[in-house]
């Protein structure tokens, strides 16, 4: 028995219709915000916003961190109550007071971080909370078949009986989307869905989004990547500092205008590339091998950015962790400023002068439920210690200096890291190494989930580090970033270094082809 998306979704047709309001013809307003507003105390998170979403459109929302995008999503999905204003759903005023109300009306969201159960199967996740039952027992086989039908129908090529946790983050994202699509959703919000996806996965997701649009679902698409907005959206709304600064038809605007609306800054100022005279070689690896990477030989000189490009899982992060002493090496040598060294653990790497801003801020980067100040000072507490105790003044001063220098938006170093936006969290991870006096900085995907303005700040920071004589290894899955910034670009594929290019020596297409072996 196989069923496609339509059949599975039809299970909910009746109940969704009962509460979700009358049908709205394509192109007519389905959701209208009238002066929708959210204050936290005296802070205006979202100033009165009036936006109309048209039935069946893909409506992108762009804005920097803190612009109010998350607040808007939370208001629409019933996670937080509004302060003032009105929301019209299919012409009727609605409260959207709870997540269940939003879901019952057919409003759903797919979040950047997948919130599903990694230990259950794909099928079990797709039917979670909505299981097919017969006489109180779950019809496991039927659900697996139905889920497989939906996945095949969507062209995902994923096994429905696989454990969700065994899939890549990107594949999990696709499952989460399929799950939302199955539930009679009429209004689907994507919150930066491609942040962790490879190109192929993104392409699959886009196909799915267009298909849902074709079936009459209204899509709200939130992204930092403007090129995606232009590829996908019909209209785009821009938020800045909690203000809705405008909505444009995509055909009537361009990247430059959007950026100007978002940040009052031109596109040339984002990729801030300065060339510095190259100094001595800081680090050199010869035939370095370890779990997930083999035979990597490369070097980094003072004043140089070495870019490592490849798909997720190509072995770049593993190489970085190996070089940093976190993973055991199986073969090869590391030369630090010309001297052969054994980097047995992270502390040895730190002592040499290597700093690592790891790939996942949440899993590897931050102690989320601890204050910003502690997170910043973590590597340098030894230096801040006088006798038995920490010098509290120096501790505070170091944290405050990084917060000030990096413009981390927080009222105090005592605020928990979990309260920070992606961009500010990244700044905390980076800031922790700035007072450490490192010579080699490894940045692994430093701009994932980071807005354009913060990106530009991070790139300028690179230049500052290079100027002081440091070297940088920049790992990124986002080609324009490594392409525009790296003095030397290495391409990784399946754990090996397959090609190397000087600054802008190869075309985008060439580099991409090498990364995917096309």
């Amino acid at each position, binding site marked *: 028995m196989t069923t496609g998306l339509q059949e599975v979704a039809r299970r909910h047709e009746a109940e969704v219709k009962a509460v979700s309001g009358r049908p709205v013809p394509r192109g007519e307003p389905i959701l209208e915000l009238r002066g929708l507003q959210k204050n*936290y*105390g005296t*802070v205006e*998170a979202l100033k009165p916003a009036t936006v109309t979403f048209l039935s069946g459109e893909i409506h992108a929302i762009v804005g920097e*961190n*803190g612009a*109010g*995008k*998350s*607040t808007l999503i939370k208001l629409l999905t019933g996670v937080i109550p509004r302060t003032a204003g009105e929301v019209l759903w299919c012409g009727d005023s609605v409260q959207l007071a709870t997540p269940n109300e939003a879901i019952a009306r057919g409003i759903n969201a797919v979040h950047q971080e997948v919130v599903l159960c990694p230990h259950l199967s794909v099928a079990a996740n797709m039917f979670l909370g909505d299981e097919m039952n017969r006489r109180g027992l779950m019809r496991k086989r039927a659900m697996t078949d139905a889920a497989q039908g939906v996945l095949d129908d969507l062209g995902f090529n994923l096994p429905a009986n696989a454990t969700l946790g065994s899939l890549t983050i990107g594949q999990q994202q696709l499952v989460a989307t399929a799950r939302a699509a199955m539930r009679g959703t009429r209004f689907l919000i994507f919150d930066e869905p491609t942040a962790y996806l490879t190109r192929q996965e993104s392409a699959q997701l886009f196909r799915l989004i267009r298909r849902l649009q074709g079936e009459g679902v209204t899509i709200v698409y939130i992204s930092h990547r403007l090129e995606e907005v232009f590829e996908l959206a019909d209209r785009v709304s821009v938020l800045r500092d*909690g203000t809705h600064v405008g909505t444009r038809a995509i055909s009537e605007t361009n990247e430059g205008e959007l950026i100007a609306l978002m940040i009052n800054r031109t596109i040339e100022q984002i990729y801030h590339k300065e060339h510095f005279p190259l100094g001595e070689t800081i680090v050199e690896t010869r035939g370095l091998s370890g779990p997930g990477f083999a035979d990597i030989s490369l070097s980094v000189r003072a004043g140089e950015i070495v870019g490592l490009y490849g798909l997720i899982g190509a072995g770049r992060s593993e190489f970085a962790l190996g070089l*940093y002493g*976190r993973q055991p090496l199986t073969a090869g040598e590391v030369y630090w400023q010309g001297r052969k060294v054994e980097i047995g653990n*992270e*502390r040895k790497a*730190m002592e040499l002068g290597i700093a*690592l801003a*790891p790939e996942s801020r949440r*899993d*590897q*980067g*931050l*102690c*989320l*439920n*601890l*204050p910003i*100040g*502690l*997170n910043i*000072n*973590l*590597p340098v*507490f*030894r230096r*801040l*210690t006088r006798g*038995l*105790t*920490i010098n*509290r003044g120096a501790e505070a001063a170091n944290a405050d200096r990084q917060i000030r220098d990096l413009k981390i*938006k*927080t*009222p*105090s170093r*005592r*605020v*928990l890291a979990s*309260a*920070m*936006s992606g961009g*500010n969290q990244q700044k905390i991870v980076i800031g*922790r190494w700035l007072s450490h006096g490192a010579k080699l900085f490894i940045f692994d995907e430093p701009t994932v989930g980071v807005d354009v303005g913060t990106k530009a700040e991070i790139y300028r920071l690179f230049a500052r580090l290079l100027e002081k004589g440091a070297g940088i290894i920049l790992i990124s899955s986002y080609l324009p970033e490594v392409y525009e910034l790296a003095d030397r670009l290495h391409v990784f594929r399946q754990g090996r270094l397959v090609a190397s290019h000087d600054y802008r020596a190869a075309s985008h297409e060439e580099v991409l082809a090498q990364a995917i072996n096309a």
Partner: protein
Amino acid sequence: MSVETVESAGPTPKRGISILFGLTLLGLLVVLWLLLGLATNAFWTPNNISNLLRQGAMTAILAVGQTFVIITAGIDLSVGAVVGFTSVIVAWLLAAGVPLWLAIVATLAIGVLIGVFHAFGIVRMGLPPFIITLATLTSLRGIGLLITNGSTISITDEAFTNFSRADFLGIPSLFWMVIVVAIPAYVFLHLSRFGRYLFAVGSNSEAARLSGVNVNRTIYLAYILSSTCAAFVGLLLASRIGIGNATQAEGWELQAIASSVIGGTSLFGAVGSVHGPLLGAFILATINNGANLLNVNSFWQRIITGLLIIVIVYFDQLRRRGSR
């Protein structure tokens, strides 16, 4: 989002629990004392107060050690068994004619070794803290019973047994021991870098590791401190009851965990303090003491303790949610 940033701009816990929560607990303790003073004449007598302080002291010391472990997102179920076991050890050593000072040092050293063993199981063998400390909980009692052949060893050293009955400046010496433990514990947890490391490991050990924190050493430290505190309590107990018996201190690990949790420590790690578990221990001791004075069935004491854990932790949860 900067929005959320500002949301939590209010009183945010810097390290562990906030001052406000500590004051609430202290308030609760004072209210309990005032109410008991009104309800019964026997409460505010010097005899009863010093009795209360003695009762609370041992749990308090266990709870402080336990808190170090819980902050790293671990648990030490063995502390009660360690107390019983070390009471046997010290009694045994004294009976064998070992000088008092050496017996004390050796007993504390055994506490250190037990902690080392726990951390070894966790760090090297990859066992969950719950399992390795559960294993020592049962086996230490067994070893203790083997040593004594199932009976008790009496302690004849009067200098040792008099200690627990002595007062200093009108305060029982056992309570002074709380202060002797609490002050270095406070310096360690709140003022030294090792305290910061405990919180970091409890919050995200991978992030701590990549930031150059010696995670393994931090875990060793936490478990060594916990079982050394327990061995210290074993000495105090042996002094108080004048015997070594491996079945003593049954269930004290739960008292210690309860005190710690009432004192605001989060079992998920990275939240806790030194003053919290101290207050928690004395709140529990006061409830027991008061219930005895009021002739409340001792079974009720257990029920009240259970309810108190739920109520206090629930209010703490509400408070945390509110500040998010």
